[in-house]
């Protein structure tokens, strides 16, 4: 209500009574969670059988879902092996890049106390949806293992 009445080209400040430390809480939690994920994937090698349970989807259907190979791709990235990571799950690698960039923008906004004033164009989101679905299908095409995690 208040925001819509104010018209300004600069991003509006969030509630000024919320301090910077409080604003940065969720970015910090997210960063800690991501760091924990990478640490586990690095220390507990997903390439060795028995370290992790098989994905329920793979066990039940015998097909790869779009997330298949994410742990192994993360493990490879933590060792600096980008090619191996792309081989395991290229979509996961691309997602990591987007997530890191988005995290940077989000954290900067929270640091400055700004609100997000723009919405990404809808075609981008629909495109993302179709990329995921196409990836899902293509990596299960028999005889074509280019996108498969193995």
């Amino acid at each position, binding site marked *: 209500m208040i925001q819509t009445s104010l018209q300004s080209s600069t991003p509006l400040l969030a509630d000024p009574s919320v301090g910077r430390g409080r604003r940065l809480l969720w970015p910090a939690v997210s960063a800690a969670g991501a760091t924990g994920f990478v640490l586990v994937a690095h220390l507990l090698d*997903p390439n060795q059988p028995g*370290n992790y*349970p*098989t994905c329920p989807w793979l066990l039940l259907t015998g097909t790869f879902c779009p997330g298949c190979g994410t742990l192994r791709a993360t493990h490879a990235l933590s060792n600096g092996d980008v090619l191996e990571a792309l081989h395991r799950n290229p979509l996961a690698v691309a997602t990591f890049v987007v997530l890191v960039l988005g995290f940077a923008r989000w954290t900067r906004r929270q640091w400055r106390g700004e609100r997000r004033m723009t919405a990404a164009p809808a075609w981008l*989101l*629909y495109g993302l*949806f179709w990329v*995921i679905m196409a990836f899902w299908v293509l990596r299960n095409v028999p005889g074509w293992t280019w996108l498969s995690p193995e």
Partner: protein
Amino acid sequence: MSDYGSTPPPPPPGGGSGNDGGSTPPPPPSGGGYDGGSYGAPPPPSGGYGGAPAGPPPSNNLVLAILGLLCCWPLGIPAVVFAAQVNGKWNAGDQAGAVEAAAKAKKFATIALVLGIIATLIYVVLIFAGVLSSDTSTTGM
């Protein structure tokens, strides 16, 4: 602005007919006169149609929806579609529709996530109970 908007009268091409009607009278009065009190331009961007409303857009819950897609695709697919609708409606000026789509995306994604978490818990319990073997050759994720 109005002065520069009208093209200056071009010099006579041949130079033969200096002051005949070939050089049309320059149109500055018509163009410049209107521009001075221009009311036409500003309204469309700030108006209802086509422009995003002022103020911060609602969270479209896209990340939640994609996680839901991986947990339970029959519910995750509508969640992602609704999340995409949020931005489409917002950018088209449909504020209420965007908020509604965001709520639907969140609802579908949450149900998908809860189902996925329950299924994973059951799965882990089965592994620890020894019903399923955990050391298959492929680790999936």
